[in-house]
């Protein structure tokens, strides 16, 4: 183990421990804020895990998030809490496997539209089912989970997701994913089992998204399809991962934290102009930071360093 790696692991653990201790020092408002932020951090990491290397832009985030939240709402009276999370995760896994198997043949814009359609389809079906079969649109969740409990669970999930994507990045799997993202034909000729790898990654990222939904659901107390399957969640996750840079380990976090704070501030101060500003941020990111802010900063730094090293060349 190199000293650099040791440093990284120590740093990671220190941050996790510091964040674990946070609830003992701050008030309820900060906890609420941190819950929302960690939820998006976990979603963005999970999104980038699949979509970053493969370049499949997925809008199905909220489909899995909502499935998790709904599973929590449906089973919250009949199952003990740990089992509840397990069941939610398994449902998410089952849906992800079916969807993944079906969508592996699609690429580009077809995949984007398919995933968006999928989220809407799930929402329509749940709404129809609730209105016509169970007879109620909303459901209540009464679970003895404190905000601190939710915070710790989301922190654990985010740390887990981060560790997984770190491991993937260092493994043969990560290398295979990079080849798939660059050129699927080449990847197939190298003997990479494209379908299996894509499916595994898609399922893994979907399970994490489902768990985020299931863990966050008790915060709402009341759940209905338009809350649980709000498409804005998909868009926000996507833009957060892109802002940071979906191909980098730290990218999703670097995107999720500032954007979450920005949107929190916007919805508090400019509730009517929220979507205009969201749109402008979207356009700005596509035009100015197409590879993410980390890439931008890194390029800027290397440019400045080379410029400083070769002043003569800059002169002419």
């Amino acid at each position, binding site marked *: 183990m190199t000293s650099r790696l040791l440093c990284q692991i120590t740093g990671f653990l220190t941050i996790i421990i510091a964040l674990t201790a946070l609830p003992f020092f701050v008030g309820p408002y900060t906890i609420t804020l941190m819950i929302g932020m960690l939820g998006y951090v976990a979603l963005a990491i999970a999104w980038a895990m699949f979509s970053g290397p493969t370049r499949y832009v997925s809008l199905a985030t909220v489909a899995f998030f909502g499935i998790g939240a709904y599973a929590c709402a449906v089973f919250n009276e009949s199952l003990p809490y740990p089992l509840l999370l397990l069941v939610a995760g398994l449902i998410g896994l089952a849906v992800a496997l079916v969807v993944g198997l079906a969508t592996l043949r699609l690429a580009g814009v077809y995949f984007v539209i398919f995933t968006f*359609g999928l989220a809407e389809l799930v929402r329509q079906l749940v709404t*129809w089912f609730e209105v016509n079969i169970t007879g109620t649109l909303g459901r209540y969740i009464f679970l003895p989970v404190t905000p601190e409990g939710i915070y710790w669970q989301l922190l654990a999930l985010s740390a887990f997701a981060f560790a997984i994507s770190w491991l993937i990045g260092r493994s043969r799997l990560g290398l295979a994913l990079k080849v798939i993202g660059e050129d699927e034909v080449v990847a197939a000729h190298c003997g990479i089992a494209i379908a299996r790898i894509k499916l595994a990654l898609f399922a893994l990222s979907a399970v994490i998204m489902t768990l985020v939904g299931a863990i966050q659901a008790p915060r709402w107390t009341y759940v209905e399809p338009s809350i649980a399957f709000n498409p804005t969640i998909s868009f926000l996750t996507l833009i957060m991962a892109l802002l940071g840079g979906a191909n980098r380990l730290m990218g999703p976090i670097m995107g999720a934290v500032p954007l979450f704070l920005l949107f929190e501030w916007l919805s508090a101060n400019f509730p009517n102009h929220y979507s*205009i500003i969201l749109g402008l*941020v979207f356009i700005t990111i*596509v035009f100015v930071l197409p590879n993410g802010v980390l890439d931008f900063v890194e390029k800027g730094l290397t440019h400045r360093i080379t410029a400083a090293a070769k002043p003569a060349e800059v002169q002419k």
Partner: protein
Amino acid sequence: MLVTAILSGLVLGGTYALLAMGLTLQYGIARIMNLAYGELIIVAAFLAYTLFATLGLSPVWTLFIAIPAGFALGWGIYGVLMQPLVRRARTPAGLEIDSILATFGLLFVIQGLLLVSFGANFTSYSYLNVAVDVFGTKLAANRLIALALAVVLGGAIYFALTRTLWGTALRAVSVSPVSASLVGIDVDRAARTAFALGGALAAAGGVVISMYQTFTATSGVVFTMKALIIVIMGGVGNILGALSAGLVLGLAETLVATYVDPGLTLATTYGLFIAILLWRPTGLFGRAAR
């Protein structure tokens, strides 16, 4: 009841076909997946509503304002937003992702502007809402006009694209941008024209829709999705495919709403779409995959 359902299905399908034609031009020729397409439709619907409510202007006359305005807007959006992305793109796939994200942004901006100026309420106005006897059943006159307008406008575009030199040049770009430039077609200009034409069709569709449907500032996404579904069902860039797929979707929605459950129409749309994508990934009338 069946005749009524089929007739209203045809009206709805005709409008959908009109909308999808615009999107298939934008995606097939300009190669821009415009996710803000539905927002343009809603803007035109609100324009028709405002002119009708304040000046008493009939939506049919509004078309004469909306179509040039939609063309100009499409022309402008392509020049300002899309052209830099097209120039920057190294691969078609890269452009696809970039254009999706940029038009996503545009979607939110337009939606936000509409919400600020008109609010989130359901909007509609009553124009020629009188029953007319058609084949023994009653149909509102505004729906008949909507169908006639869809047929006339769609027919005009179809004729222009297939029978004129100008339309042939546009279709050549859709088939192969590289070869098109070899035979002296200005691809950039063709793409911009196609995008603007798509904007004009969206505006026309929005005015037509506002004549017989309620709409809100946020319902643009639904129209984008439906138009997209039709485009993909009919095969990208395929005008006749869009026409027939639009009619199929309109009929399917109306039949499900009449005989099964009105709450399931959107689910039907998405279900149909997902099934077709899985069965024929390039669309019902699409070319075989490369």
